[in-house]
């Protein structure tokens, strides 16, 4: 039995009258990649926001390695080992690609409150940042401003920030959306690499079913904020609810890939 690293209990959030995430209880295990699927607006991103602390739940708890982190701010959760890449790319636009990654590493090294040394005294951070940029295939653009990158490269940098944080729990929110077909493998390889490290827990929101099918150890389905299905990929994908509500009555492109 694998160890449960992250758990949500009855996690709920309401916006006005709308229940975006409705009493979701779910446990995630280290060494497992769980894909979260569901129609648009099902509450996947909101669920992530609740786990990583961008939103406060109306009810329910988030537990990390057994301890309750529901009242922790987002920054503290990051230090506790939760890492997150965003669906809508969120970078430091006027800083260089290198600096974007370095800042993440610096946070991980708890150096933020160092007022006295010059930033570049911490050589190890710089070397590590270069390594991360290699990994996400952005080494050539290390000095460009993040804002000037094309959309696909921005997505890669978004993932790069997450890699730099090197958390125990990785949360990817549609990491490959808008990325060109030849770039997608870069990200997929990274995720595959992570899967090899058995103590990491990976959560992945993804609409591309081929990707999900290939990577996921387990799939959970959110629909209208409720947890509708949970199980191994084959069963879940085959279930009528997923076929109808998510993939649509006429499954289209799947065969081609």
């Amino acid at each position, binding site marked *: 039995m694998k160890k449960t690293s992250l758990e949500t209990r009855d996690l709920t959030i309401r916006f006005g009258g709308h229940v975006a995430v409705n009493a979701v209880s779910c446990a995630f295990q280290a060494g497992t990649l769980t894909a979260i699927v569901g129609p648009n607006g099902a509450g996947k991103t909101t669920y992530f926001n609740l786990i990583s602390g961008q939103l406060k739940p109306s009810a329910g708890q988030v537990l990390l390695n057994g301890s309750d982190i529901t009242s922790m701010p987002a*920054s503290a959760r990051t230090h506790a080992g939760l890492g997150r890449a965003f669906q809508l790319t969120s*970078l430091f636009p006027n800083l260089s690609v290198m600096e974007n990654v370095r800042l993440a590493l610096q946070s991980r090294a708890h150096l933020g409150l160092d007022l006295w040394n010059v930033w570049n005294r911490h050589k190890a951070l710089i070397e590590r940042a270069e390594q991360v940029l290699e990994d996400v295939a952005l080494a050539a653009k290390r000095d460009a401003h993040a804002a000037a990158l094309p959309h696909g490269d921005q997505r890669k940098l978004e993932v790069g920030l997450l890699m730099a944080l090197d958390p125990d729990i990785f949360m990817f929110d549609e990491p490959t959306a808008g990325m060109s077909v030849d770039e997608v493998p870069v990200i997929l390889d990274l995720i595959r690499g992570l899967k090899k490290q058995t103590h990491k827990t990976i959560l992945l929101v993804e609409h591309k079913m081929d990707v999900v099918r290939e990577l996921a150890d387990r799939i959970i389905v959110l629909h209208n904020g409720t947890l509708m299905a949970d199980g191994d990929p084959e069963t879940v994908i085959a279930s009528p609810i997923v076929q109808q509500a998510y993939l649509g009555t006429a499954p289209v492109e799947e065969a081609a890939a």
Partner: protein
Amino acid sequence: MIRQLLSHDLPRNRLLTAVLLVILAGLAFAPFLFPGAKALNVAAKILIFIVLVASYDLLLGYTGIVSFAHTMFFGIGAYGIAIASTRMGPGWGSLLVGGLCAVALSLLLSLIIGLFSLRVRAIFYAMITLAVASAFQTLASQLSQFTGGEDGLNFKLPEMLSPAFQLAEEQVLGAWLDGKFITYYILFFTTVLLFLAMLRIVNSPFGRVLQAIRENDFRAEAIGYRIVVFRTLSNVLAAVFATLAGCMLAIWLRYNGPDTSLSFEIMVDILLIVVIGGMGTMYGAICGSAIFLLAQNYLQDLMRIASGTAQGLPLLPALLSPDRWLLWLGILFILSVYFFPTGIVGKLRTWRQ
């Protein structure tokens, strides 16, 4: 060695380096190069504004916080010295006590303001600080038993710093070694020290986080920086440096009043200098202060000449009258925001790498 002193944040441009060296030399040898009460006064003001503006740059240029309460801290520093020297009589002890109390008060106030309002939207914060600063100014003029009200406080300094004190009987290289001379050099070395300290702060890992927060606070929080802590700290640091600048001002003027250190005009001046010099560069504070204060003090003289030559033309003499110097300063300012959005330093740096 110099790299280390400058925290590896060099001017990065020949011309800029040259400009900075000229300003540094001018300030270092001002009592010898430009004897005369007015010139020395301008030089001292430049020193004070370098500290004040650099501290504001820390807040605005690096952290992206627009605050109008910066003069409040400047004023606290100046009042600290003024009130202590008035109450306790002239002496080094009064300076120390006044300075320390002022710093303590600034720490407390900036912490409160920071915690209270750094959670609200940036533009909201700007306007709230504006209101707070104006209330503080009212308060200062109301507490007239302490602050001397609208009239302010005139006070004396320790014997050694008073104009009557003479270090040597004779002039040395054209300068009288009097109390003013000593005060000037105290200000000069304080400025150098404080500036280097601020340069170090913005180039520390902490300073880098401030820039990240300026760029995208949401993301900064998400990668693990508690932004309330960083913003508040940046606020507190800026406040403390501004307070020290205020102490310097009071020591130089041997006077303080609400208009001298708390007025909104000074706030406008600070903003102008930051922008003219170049936001988020630190060196901008040096270039900006030097240019702005020279303009402020000598523009009127220039205009006197200009309006003389424009005599007889319609409207022009009225526009060029030395009394309208603010008009031209305002126009210069608007133009500089347009054409030098990155300020002198930014312009020089991109001009020829």
